[in-house]
């Protein structure tokens, strides 16, 4: 970490960006897609189609009248064959619309939205079905409508991609750099921000070069567009860390980026939004990095949303070793899946399949209080103290020691020599606090 880094902590996670040079391959429509009604933070959508309905690509199949939601669109054309319940990666249940593909990919008659003011802009963003594609799944139209709109002066484009293996955002920067730029300009206009910072880790020089070059063409004194190279140190892409590294501002616990005048958007989200504004075709595909020691041909694939993971892996050339661990997302924060039948979600950016030897669970031993987790925590928490409070179910101590500030980045457990499952323990602590606040 550089001496002047705005954020203490973090870890040197291995990069393993094996697929950085793999140009994205477009996957043909699978036999069926399973569209979960819960692909965002907030209440799930309700299916707007019935079994037997014929649907086209881009047609709405699920929507909700709640603020914190985004519509779900058909990613293939065909017939709705079932409305069923699936188990999501986090173990919760969600409704899902299953569409049997007719292979024709007949598009729904979409038109570019008319966008002349902020309200129309927000309506268009909502209609695009866009959510935070970096992983959180925060509905974009909510993010772009902060309460203190006039106080927002900086838009930060997150292209840090600090998770090992994943190169999907990097490919977006390289392959669709002009989409990124036009998305940036649109948002700048409607949010009336004076500064845009595109943040990329220094281990992606090609992306930095390309984006710097095109940023130069629109960078003016009144509306700055800057590409900022960040140290390649995990977790640069974590929202609060990113804001501190690019602007020096610190988001207090329990607050949002908007509270310090920033809006942070994932780079793929920006590019997708600009394509939607041009064509009117909503979010129906996603680029995924397929990698891991069990994958025969690691690569980047653009897949229709809702494609079962097993079909995606098969398309890339299948497995070269039996899978022991399957991850949705990166190895630091991704979720381990129990099987391959789960469908691709909007917020997915990688599927990693690991063979037996890379899936060994280390045996935990007692904490020796070496303090490596304390040094590694970007949120300046003290995991060992919190772990004891979790053991004692001491909700008071957990709150006092700010367990809710934990963003589960995994730096503590990564660096622990005693191999303690610290993230799991802290998650338990957060659940204890949530349960207690619900009771009172």
């Amino acid at each position, binding site marked *: 970490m550089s001496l002047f880094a705005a954020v203490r902590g973090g870890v040197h996670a291995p990069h393993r960006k094996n697929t950085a040079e793999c140009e994205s391959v477009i996957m043909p429509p699978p036999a069926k897609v399973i569209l979960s009604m819960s692909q965002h933070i907030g209440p799930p959508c309700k299916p707007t189609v019935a079994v037997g309905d014929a649907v086209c690509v881009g047609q709405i199949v699920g929507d909700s009248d709640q603020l914190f939601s985004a519509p779900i669109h058909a990613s293939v054309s065909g017939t709705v064959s079932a409305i069923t319940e699936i188990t999501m990666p986090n173990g919760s249940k969600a409704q899902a619309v299953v569409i049997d593909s007719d292979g024709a990919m007949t598009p729904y008659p979409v038109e570019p939205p008319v966008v002349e003011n902020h309200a129309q802009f927000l309506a268009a963003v909502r209609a695009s079905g866009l959510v935070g594609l970096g992983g959180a799944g925060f509905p974009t139209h909510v993010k772009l409508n902060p309460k203190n709109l006039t106080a927002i002066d900086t838009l930060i484009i997150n292209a840090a991609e600090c998770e090992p293996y994943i190169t999907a955002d990097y490919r977006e920067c390289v392959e669709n750099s002009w989409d990124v730029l036009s998305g940036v300009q649109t948002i700048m206009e409607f949010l009336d921000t004076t500064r845009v910072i595109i943040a990329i880790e220094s281990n992606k020089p090609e992306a930095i070069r390309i984006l710097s070059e095109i940023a130069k063409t629109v960078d003016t004194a009144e509306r700055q567009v800057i590409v900022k190279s960040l140290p390649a140190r995990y977790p640069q892409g974590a929202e609060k860390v990113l804001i501190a590294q690019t602007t020096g501002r610190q988001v207090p616990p329990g607050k949002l980026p908007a509270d310090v005048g920033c809006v942070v958007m994932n780079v793929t989200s920006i590019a997708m939004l600009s394509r939607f504004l041009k064509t009117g075709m909503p979010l129906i595909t996603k680029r995924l990095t397929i990698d891991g020691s069990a994958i025969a041909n690691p690569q980047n694939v653009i897949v229709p949303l809702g494609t079962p993971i097993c079909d995606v892996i098969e398309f890339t050339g299948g497995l070269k070793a039996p899978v022991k661990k399957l991850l949705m997302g990166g190895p630091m924060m991704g979720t381990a899946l129990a099987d391959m039948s789960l469908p691709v979600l909007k917020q997915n950016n990688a599927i990693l399949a690991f063979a037996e030897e890379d899936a060994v669970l280390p045996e935990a031993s007692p904490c020796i209080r070496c303090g490596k987790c304390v040094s590694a925590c970007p*949120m300046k928490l003290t995991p060992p103290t919190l772990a004891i409070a979790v053991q004692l179910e001491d909700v008071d101590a957990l709150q006092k020691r700010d367990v809710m500030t934990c963003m589960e980045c995994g730096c503590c457990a990564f660096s622990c020599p005693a191999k303690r499952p610290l993230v799991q323990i802290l998650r338990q602590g957060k659940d204890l606090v949530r349960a207690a606040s619900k009771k009172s």
Partner: protein
Amino acid sequence: MEDNRFLVSSSPHLREDTSTRMIMLDVIIALIPALVASIWLFGWQAVAVIVVCVGSCVASEYLSRLILKRPQTVGDLSCIVTGLLLAFNLPASIPLWEAALGGVVAIVVAKQMFGGIGHNFVNPALIGRIVLLMSFPGDMNTWLNPVGRGLDAISSATPLAVQSVAESPYDLGTLFFGAHAGSLGETCAGALIIGGIYLVIRRVIKPTIPLVYIGTVFVLTWLITGQVYDATYHILAGGLMLGAIFMATDYTTSPITPWGKVIYALGCGLLTVLIRQWGSLPEGVSFAIVIMNILTPLIERVTHSRPFGQKRRERHA
């Protein structure tokens, strides 16, 4: 695809290549220069004391875990570190059964009775030494003259036992290279500093505690005596280097908070100087560290870091 149920576990799914055993191995490596120096200075008697202490600690650890029906922890090598540190804190002429008893006290009483590695609240090696010091003051204060290579167990004055620094038979160079009476591993300050630098480079310890501890002793001694020479003499003499680099930095018994480390090391330095200048004992490092060990939980409580982004402690005051 094949029977598709996979291993489900919490993130992160990547771990750094490190372990308790690797850390302890680094500490052992860092102790090697002082080990070589002690054997060079005190000969076969040093070898015997080291072998007995390490053997006693390993056996105590193994048998404690066996009798308590707990998972075996000899493999983490922490008992070897304790054995080496205990030996380094004893005079070369100590009867071997006393050295062995020190190992039993360190491991069984100070460590295993409180739950084993990570659970002891005081440094086990220091408790072993203090118990021996209280029980066998004669044997614990018989110092071999290293120049005689231990052939005659004549009692010789340690650098801190002299009336004043001005009357000391030792100069700073002698203190640095270790050719004077003292505990096995404490005499050669140079070897201990090499070990300390290794630990810092390997990121096993942060330099905070040793620097603040030694710095405090230097500054306070300088203020009291008014002499830079005396202050330098005091940081090179006695068990300060060994204590500040290897004992006060013990993970389990020192604070994990950054500011806690500073306060803890300041306390160690202050107590060491108080005991050395005005206490009835010539040396105070062991007691200073043990007292600060006991205060560690309290220090941690008052030095808790504010979380990222929080300006003032307004919420929980």
